[in-house]
């Protein structure tokens, strides 16, 4: 084992931990004041619940001994057998537990991202049920396919450095699907839902950027040149995307702060699958492409008149899709010998595999999310009543208000 690697992976885990509540702040600033706490609480509660799901059985399902290339076994229930000794395949230089911890934070953030589709009218209890089912039935299998020893997408040779497909595509598609199941907010299309606190959203995006260094850099699972490289491409793509968003919104109106914050996150999403495989100029292109993709998709979603409230699909699903495909284009063995060459370097195969993995993630997430959301909707009920929506979820779901002020 290597203490430098351990230090870096531990630190990365800490950084990623911060991201889940940061998603809460990012989203929280975008809703109306009466739903501010409840929006943050959705993310915060994922951190709490999925932490437990993961150590009890989620990790075992995702990374445990492979069953038919489809799922991990329950042999590692309650981390039984997961100890200090490294797991040779997953990360040879750090304790197996460190790898488990690092992956936990990935499992945690994913349902938190989806929460953006539900805000302002979801029943808190329904979201708790949703997240446990979704994490178990969608995230865990998907993580196994892509990253688990024996997983079939991994065997196919699909690349996903830090979760563009597993995390961002699945959550984005899930968000769109869920929005088709849960009812719209009252007055959707008629009322302007003004974001209450752009400062909070900005604070969230700052912490997300900070945490994403752990997300992407930590995915090297060692303190090495790949980790360094991944952090740099991450930073560069975020900047390129934010600048692009700024310019687009300037052309149509003015360079809004909300837009720049969004652009930043979109750039971070787009580079996620690619960060350890592509060079600096491709990273810039990926950032720019992410902004263009997500921006157009927000317009599209608006036109479709779907109340996917905080545009998780456009910002995560579509930027993640673009990133996964771009990985198939720009990946280069010169950057990372453990990766593969992409289309630009004459390798059509990787490109096709990437496309395949994108399609799989889309279809699987959409189908499963629909079933889960529909089932909850029919039995327990997904959304609150109109009176509760009007009073606001902070009071109706949590009995509190964000700010005491007469």
């Amino acid at each position, binding site marked *: 084992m290597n203490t430098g690697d351990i230090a870096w992976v531990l630190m990365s885990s800490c950084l990623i931990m911060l991201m889940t509540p940061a998603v809460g702040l990012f989203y929280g600033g975008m809703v109306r004041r*009466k739903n501010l706490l409840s929006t943050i609480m959705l993310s915060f509660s994922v951190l709490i619940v999925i932490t437990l799901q993961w150590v009890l059985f989620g990790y075992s399902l995702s990374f445990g001994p492979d069953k038919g290339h489809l799922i991990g076994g329950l042999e590692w229930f309650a981390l039984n057998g997961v100890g200090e000794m490294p797991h040779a395949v997953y990360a040879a230089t750090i304790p197996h537990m460190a790898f488990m911890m690092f992956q936990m934070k990935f499992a945690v953030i994913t349902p938190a991202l989806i929460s953006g589709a539900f805000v302002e009218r979801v029943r808190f209890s329904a979201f708790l049920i949703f997240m446990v089912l979704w994490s178990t039935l969608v995230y865990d299998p998907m993580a196994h396919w892509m990253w688990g020893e024996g997983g079939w997408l991994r065997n196919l040779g699909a690349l996903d450095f830090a979760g563009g497909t597993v995390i961002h595509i699945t959550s984005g598609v899930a968000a769109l699907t869920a929005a088709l199941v849960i009812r719209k907010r*009252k*007055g959707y299309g008629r*009322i302007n839902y003004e974001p209450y606190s752009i400062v909070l959203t900005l604070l969230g995006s700052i912490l997300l950027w900070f945490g994403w260094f752990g997300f992407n850099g930590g995915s090297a699972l060692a303190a090495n040149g790949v980790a360094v490289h991944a952090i740099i491409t991450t930073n560069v793509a975020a900047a390129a995307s934010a600048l692009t968003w700024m310019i687009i919104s300037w052309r149509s109106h003015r360079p809004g702060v909300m837009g720049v914050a969004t652009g930043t996150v979109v750039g971070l999403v787009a580079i996620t699958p690619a960060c350890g495989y592509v060079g600096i100029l491709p990273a810039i292109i990926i950032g720019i492409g992410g902004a263009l993709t997500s921006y157009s998709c927000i317009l599209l979603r608006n036109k479709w008149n779907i109340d996917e409230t905080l545009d998780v699909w456009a910002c995560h699903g579509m930027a993640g899709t673009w990133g996964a495909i771009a990985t198939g284009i720009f990946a280069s063995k010169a950057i990372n010998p453990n990766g593969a060459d992409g289309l630009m370097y004459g390798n059509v195969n990787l490109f096709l595999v990437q496309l395949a993995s994108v399609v799989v993630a889309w279809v699987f997430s959409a189908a499963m999310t629909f079933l889960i959301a529909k089932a909850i909707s029919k039995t327990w009920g997904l959304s609150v009543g109109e009176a509760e929506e*009007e*009073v606001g979820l902070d*009071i109706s779901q949590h*009995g*509190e*208000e964000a700010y005491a002020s007469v």
Partner: protein
Amino acid sequence: MKKIEAIIKEENLDAVKDALEAAGFIGMTVYSVKGRGMGGGITLEWRAGTYKVDFLHKIMLMIVVPESDYQKVVDIIVEICRADVASGAGKIFVSTVDEVIRIRTGERNEAALTGSSRA
């Protein structure tokens, strides 16, 4: 002149504003208040205990108009907000204003309420 103080739901502000604008009532003042009508209160939580907070956020829309217009304004507000049959639709108070001064021009009363001198 009459001062109309309408306490309405936040959600309705935009619609009311637009309707008033359409009817030619541009100038107005709004602020955030909390209030309750004849309904009861809500019990909120504090760590291991509970406390009662019984006010909900509302918008106070204050608009001063010539006496002749006030009924029209009241009607517009009632019209828009009434759609919402649930409780808390709001209340309107009408009172008399003795004098209005437009600071910029020093115009008084009805002249101060119209846009004429602006051009």
